[in-house]
């Protein structure tokens, strides 16, 4: 699903990989690739032709002792404080993430703890796990003696855990707790009846 862009290739045919000629790239209707005849249409943006390389700022050196210095580079001028920890940062250490300016340590910490949604690449859907654990074992019934309390535990335990970064309600957690509770009630009634 992801292929690197080869050096010197402006736009490549998605089927055969041949370089597309300029008339195919600029056309507003699909045109056939000269090599594999696949009908290809390209919607180009300015970044395709205005290939600027973002210049990294190395950080300006301190010119006098009264200037604030970077926490990580004491010989460089501080330009901005970290939005999270407040440490002074030079332009080299300044990482812009959405509207925040963060230091490398806060970015790494935020990534590891899953607090920066922008850097999250994977999430576990605990609500779906709890609901499946409550619902699917009904097919085998006897296992629900174990899975019902487990489903309730997982739902309660992960109620506030970070879930999908997409909009999602807690309805699956609620259903898991309800179904698990009903199963436990059922087992209680069954065992009480058996004992009497």
């Amino acid at each position, binding site marked *: 699903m992801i292929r690197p862009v080869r050096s*010197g290739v402006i*736009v490549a*045919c998605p*089927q055969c*990989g041949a370089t597309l000629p300029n008339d195919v790239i600029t056309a507003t209707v699909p045109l056939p690739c000269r090599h594999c005849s696949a009908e290809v249409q390209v*919607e180009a943006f300015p970044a*395709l*032709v205005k290939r600027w390389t973002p210049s990294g700022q190395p950080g300006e050196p301190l010119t006098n002792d009264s200037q604030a210095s970077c926490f990580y580079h004491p010989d460089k001028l501080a330009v901005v404080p970290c939005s999270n920890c407040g440490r002074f940062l030079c332009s080299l250490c300044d990482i812009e993430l959405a509207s925040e300016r963060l230091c490398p340590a806060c970015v790494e910490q935020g990534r590891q703890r899953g607090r920066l949604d922008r850097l999250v690449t994977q999430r576990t859907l605990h609500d779906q796990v709890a609901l499946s654990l409550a619902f699917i074992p009904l097919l085998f019934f006897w296992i629900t003696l174990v899975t019902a309390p487990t489903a309730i535990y997982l739902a309660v335990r992960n109620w506030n855990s970070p879930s*999908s*970064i997409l909009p999602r309600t807690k309805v699956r957690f609620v259903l898991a707790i309800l179904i698990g509770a009903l199963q436990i009630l059922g087992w209680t009634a069954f065992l009480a009846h058996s004992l009497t």
Partner: protein
Amino acid sequence: MRYTRIPGKKGGLYRRCTLWMGDDHLLAVESTGYTEQYRRLYYKDMQAVIIRETSRKRDLGLLFASFAFLAALPALIHLDPLESPLSLAGILTSAAFLSLLLVNLYKGPTCTCSIQMPVAVHGLPSLRRRKNVELFLSLLKPRVEKLQGKLSRDELRAGLYRLTVSSPQVSPMSPIFGGLEGSQPRVFSSRIHGLAFGFLLLDAALTWLSIHHNNLLLTMLNTLVGMALFALLITGAARQKRSSLPAAVKTLLWSGIMVFLSYNLIYWVFIYAIFILGNQVEVFRDQWSLFSAVAELNPVDHPTLTKVMMGYTITAFIIGLSALLALAMDRWPRKTSGAELTMRTSEGLQ
């Protein structure tokens, strides 16, 4: 961050891909149901959206139409279809496939879509219909233009020319094989597939002959052709992976394998049942006895067996003919004249 869902999703056995539009980036989500994986594509870095038209709509249409016809066969053959449960089931199944066919027609042309970024090209598997791609572009373009600015056709042409001149080692016509969607497609001749489907037609013809004629030679020939067919089908299935063959041909090959295996399973279960229930267990003492007994068996005396053999014959003919037609269409040279190409190019540039 608020996200807007882009219509379209690609679902597999255990994975589902969806696309969401944020304020400054596109979010591609791959979900297994229990986990989600995210990929962010920032508008300010997007270079191009590449759309390739596919024949998936046509292939699916052919598939659904074929299955609708096959399912309706019992009802078409039966004098009073409503009296037969099999015919009724066939009508219902056929109606279901016809519904799928109509939905496929309504959804419109199919395509693949990918986004070129500075260092990689990212496929967007959830965008498989042209309608969804058009909607996606209508939402994406304003956001990209807001960050990157607008680009006129003249500026694009000038920029491309500048880039082409500055990178002379890659001429516009040099072929660099390696598909962007998935692994590099293998380009090989489809002779194995042609042979397999040809043998499928031959096997169907021999099966039909076996219904009306019983002799050892015909049975031997049918068996040999069946063995060769099975070998060709399996070889074709192994070789077609990641090949440039049309999806319809690949699907039909797998259909052929399933039909062949199903028929042989049912056929041999019937044969064993006939001999065991007929107290003819002595035929199982060796292979040659069994072979001779099968050759002498008259399928016409066993209506169910006849129906199974007829069903296989018809199905195999349909699959074989459809596949050979699809192969022929794939190999048919594109008859685009120079004038037509120039005209289309001129229309595209306007």
